[in-house]
């Protein structure tokens, strides 16, 4: 019955008391974060508030010092990254981390090939077809035979997203600053992709960003972090008038 409460509450993702310290610095401090399946949630907060650390904890790159993470009711906070991915969690990095010497298409194929090793093979024609459709959606299909390190910064971000969407099944997509420093037209492509994947496949998104205008169009609700803690949650209108948030952003 240990896994029942999270599942029964209907949360896709639920963290309790999630904590990560680096030396004396508490980067994430008892974070309670909950996401419903099918949500597009923004995660905002001033620089150094623990947003990226949270994403690293959720994707398994960091191991939590305390607290727990449940995905569809199952504890995932002690799993290595590839087993978290196997349970349907994908992510992007703020500074794109691609397989630079592989082609765009080969990059996109890695999650599908890795799934074979995890005992979930799919027909090669199917995964190739999905890769091509995702690359087309992210305007990269023409470049599919190009070596990834030759892509521009914005294109690299697009490829990270296409590659992440190749994780199958995909329940939760964590995006760390997907709009930082990318061209407005690429920003539009990313937004359209998020909305389409959310609508068509029910993918849940957690988007770390500083771009309030973009988040406002994407996310019905946002969570606000400050000094490792969750200080507010709600619609933009609610948090914009939230005294603690204003104080965290503007100082006293």
């Amino acid at each position: 019955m240990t896994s029942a409460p999270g599942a029964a509450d209907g949360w896709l993702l639920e963290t309790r008391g999630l904590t990560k310290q680096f030396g004396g610095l508490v980067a994430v401090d008892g974070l309670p974060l909950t996401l419903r399946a099918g949500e597009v949630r923004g995660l905002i907060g001033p620089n150094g508030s623990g947003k990226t650390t949270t994403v690293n904890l959720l994707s398994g790159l960091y191991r939590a010092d305390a607290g727990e993470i449940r995905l569809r009711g199952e504890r995932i906070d002690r799993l290595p990254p590839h087993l978290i991915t196997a349970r349907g969690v994908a992510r992007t990095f703020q500074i794109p981390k691609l397989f630079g010497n592989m082609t765009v298409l080969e990059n996109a194929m890695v999650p599908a090939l890795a799934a074979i090793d995890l005992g979930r093979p799919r027909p090669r024609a199917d995964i190739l077809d999905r890769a091509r459709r995702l690359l087309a959606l992210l305007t990269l299909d023409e470049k599919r035979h190009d070596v990834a390190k030759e892509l521009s910064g914005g294109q690299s971000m697009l490829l990270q997203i296409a590659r992440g969407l190749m994780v199958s099944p995909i329940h939760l997509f964590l995006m760390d600053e997907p709009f930082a420093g990318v061209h407005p037209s690429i920003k539009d492509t990313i937004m359209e992709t998020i909305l389409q994947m959310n609508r068509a496949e029910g993918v849940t998104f957690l988007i770390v960003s500083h771009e309030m205008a973009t988040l406002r169009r994407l996310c019905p609700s946002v969570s606000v972090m400050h000094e490792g803690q969750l200080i507010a949650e709600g619609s933009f209108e609610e948090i914009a008038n939230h005294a603690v948030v204003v104080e965290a952003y503007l100082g006293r």
Partner: protein
Amino acid sequence: MPRFVRRVGWCLLAYAAFAWLPWAASEYHTHVLVTSLYYVVLAIGWNLLAGYTGQFSLAHHTFAGVGAYTSALLVLYAGAPILVGIVAGALVAAAIGYGLGTLCLRMRAIYLALATWAFAESLRLLVTVEYQITRGDLGLAAPFLFSTPRPTPYYFLFLGLALAAVLAARQIVDSRVGSYMRAIRDDEEAAAVMGVDTFKWKRFVFAVSAVFAAVAGGFQGHYVGLLSPTPMKFNEMAIIVVMVIVGGLRTFPGPIVGAVFIEVLSEALRAWGEVRMVLFALLVILIARGYPGGLVGISGALGRRLAARIPALAAALAPSQLRD
């Protein structure tokens, strides 16, 4: 599977194409060819680890020693048939490679190089010190595989081994495991969060490359007939690194071209003695600075330049550039 069958066909053709060489060459030159082919197997194995997976191990030559000593000791003390000895050597090397891979899993670049180097030196000293068993620097007499020290039969053996190594490496590189390896090399964290079990596959490549070295070393031992700890010195590792880098690190033909080129050059300049290492070091610096693709990269660039001038050549070269 048809692709595999086609490749076996190519290997058989290549075998036929090179099999006549001992009749054209002197016994000495045949010996040089046998040694070249031995290094081809070693270099291909190390390129899988360092070139394709980004794990810069400096213990590759040690696994050749593990293969050679395991086999010779089993044959001498237990009366095992030589082929049994070589299989045992490969298994022991795979186990040690797996263990070493496990120890080095979380290490990055320089620490991995240092740890594997320390391991290599320890094993060499162990072989030297345990002279009651290994006869240390006096040398251990390993029985000849073909009951002769003449190189010709060994040439046929090593030509087969080298082509088998080429085939096996090609199969690995083109498989999904090859994708995991290159993903790990390019960005280990990204590979992990995209679902690749990075620890498992790093260990796997460690073990596989150790087997390449141990099989080559095992047969080499029963060809040379005298084992000593000398080839377990760092010089030998340096030569393998030189071969792969001069040939073209991360390229598939690089280690093959580099191994033959360096071994033949090394023999041609035998009169220079140790000065050869200086030459090789300069060669490595030159290539690392100017032509990271090595000889393979240079000839590719030359080919493209020629093709730009001669349209007929462009047509001939085109298919090789269509690969995904």
